[in-house]
């Protein structure tokens, strides 16, 4: 999220951060994963994507969500997946959103960004594109994202660049194997007139199985922080490194956990989660099909009400750095088996490592759903029971679902 705050000296009622932590009447932006289908099988996929879910929202249902977002002035959405462009109605939904005052940034592995598509994207101010890249060379990238994915991503970047699309995003998840490549990533982004975006590796989805081996080591966290500090606004971070603010000053951005307060996630079947890194029943606020639509869930969910209430912070509140890191990322704690009221697993003071060493490793939560291709399930450990479906026949849209799905194909 690119956010700047106009520096007025005297906010009238309370600090801005207090307003944001108490939650807004509508999100500032949200992530919307349009499909669980994906042609890749990245080892760290946050949504355990692979296979399409037959219950995915129909075109008409997606349009209803967009209407709702327009009505409540949610100015932009981050569309992801899965690979969102594999949805046959993807381009239609993109046009529908942008013609309804909802700007779109979509994340893609680049496989469908042909020269023709790139030219079309370059013509729209309302659309931004984010190409995922997790290594500055094929060896590092493809070990996570799969053979050939580096070349695919770079080909897409070249198409966008050739089409005159300036400032598209190259999005990198920081790992143990690519923190040493930060300058090389910047060179790649610069070469294509793109903007680099570096975000935190979260232990969610399939990444719960690889986080231990992939997350940056303590010395690398410092290296990453220093590198980002030196680049300021030039490199985006999606506000994802607020847990590193304990090193000194915060990185540009809001530096708070926005989950359920200013951001959330809509998943492909209409489940609404507190954030994209928390696809688990513990963080599920409701379903827009079953529970009265998106805004109703946003405003009335009991989970979101709890997330907006003052947080106790537990043991962390007595820490000298608490005002900086705010205790870190709840989802990262949850999926590494740490308590919410304790330190983030990557606490800059090393308290997370101590907590990880002392945790109960038997009861670490597993993601509530898994749409992995069969081969990647086998590759990443024990099969996870899929969540039971939650039919909601009472919803007026339920009757039209089958017909619309048939159209969608």
């Amino acid at each position: 999220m690119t956010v700047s705050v106009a520096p007025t000296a005297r906010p009238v009622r309370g600090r801005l951060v207090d307003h944001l932590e108490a939650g807004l009447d509508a999100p500032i932006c949200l992530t919307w994963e349009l499909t669980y289908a994906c042609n890749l099988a990245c080892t760290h996929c946050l949504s355990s994507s692979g296979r399409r879910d037959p219950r995915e929202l129909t075109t008409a249902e997606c349009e209803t969500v967009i209407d709702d977002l327009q009505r409540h002035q949610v100015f932009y959405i981050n569309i992801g997946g899965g690979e969102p462009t594999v949805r046959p109605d993807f381009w239609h939904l993109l046009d529908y959103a942008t013609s309804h005052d909802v700007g779109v940034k979509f994340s893609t592995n680049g496989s469908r960004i042909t020269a023709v598509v790139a030219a079309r994207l370059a013509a729209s101010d309302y659309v931004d594109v984010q190409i995922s890249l997790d290594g500055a060379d094929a060896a590092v990238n493809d070990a996570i994202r799969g053979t050939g994915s580096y070349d695919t991503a770079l080909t897409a970047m070249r198409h966008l660049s050739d089409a005159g699309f300036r400032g598209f995003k190259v999005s990198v998840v920081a790992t143990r194997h690519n923190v040493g490549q930060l300058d090389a990533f910047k060179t790649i982004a610069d070469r294509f007139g793109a903007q680099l975006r570096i975000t935190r590796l979260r232990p969610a989805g399939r990444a719960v199985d690889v986080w231990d081996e992939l997350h940056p080591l303590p010395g690398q966290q410092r290296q990453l922080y220093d590198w980002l500090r030196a680049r300021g606004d030039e490199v985006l971070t999606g506000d994802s490194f607020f847990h590193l603010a304990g090193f000194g000053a915060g990185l540009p951005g809001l530096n708070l956990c926005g989950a359920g307060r200013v951001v959330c996630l809509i998943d492909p079947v209409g489940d609404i989660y507190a954030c994209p890194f928390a696809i688990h029943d513990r963080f599920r606020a409701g379903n827009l099909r079953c529970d009265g639509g998106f805004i109703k869930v946003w405003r009335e969910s009991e989970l979101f009400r709890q997330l907006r209430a003052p947080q106790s912070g537990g043991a962390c509140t007595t820490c000298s750095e608490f005002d900086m890191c705010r205790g870190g990322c709840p989802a990262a704690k949850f999926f590494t088996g740490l308590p919410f009221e304790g330190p983030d697993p990557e606490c800059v003071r090393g308290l997370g490592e101590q907590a990880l060493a002392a945790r109960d490793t038997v009861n670490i939560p597993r993601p509530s759903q898994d749409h992995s291709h069969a081969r990647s399930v086998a590759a990443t450990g024990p099969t996870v029971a899929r969540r039971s479906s939650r039919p909601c026949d009472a919803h007026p849209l339920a009757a039209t679902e089958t017909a619309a799905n048939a159209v969608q194909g």
Partner: protein
Amino acid sequence: MAVGASAGGEVFDLDRAWTLSSSVALRPERFGALAYDFHTRRLSMLKDPGLVEVVCSLSNHASAREACMAAGVDDGRIVSFVRALDALRRSGVIHERAAA
């Protein structure tokens, strides 16, 4: 007295006519407003309801100073308002318009 904030060699001129950019939408919030520019895809936060009032009324006044006076911005607050308006100018949220 000229009150200004310098940025890139320029000074925000309170005595000129300004307007909210046509590509920017404002969403009122308890703390002020969110401002989103659909062209630059940048989100800004106006964290003072008084600033929101000034920004929204810029196009109705012959100068930014007049808009501030109409919104009841007193001399003690004008410097901080100029600083905020200048930040909004630099990010393209507001721009100068031809005086009526």
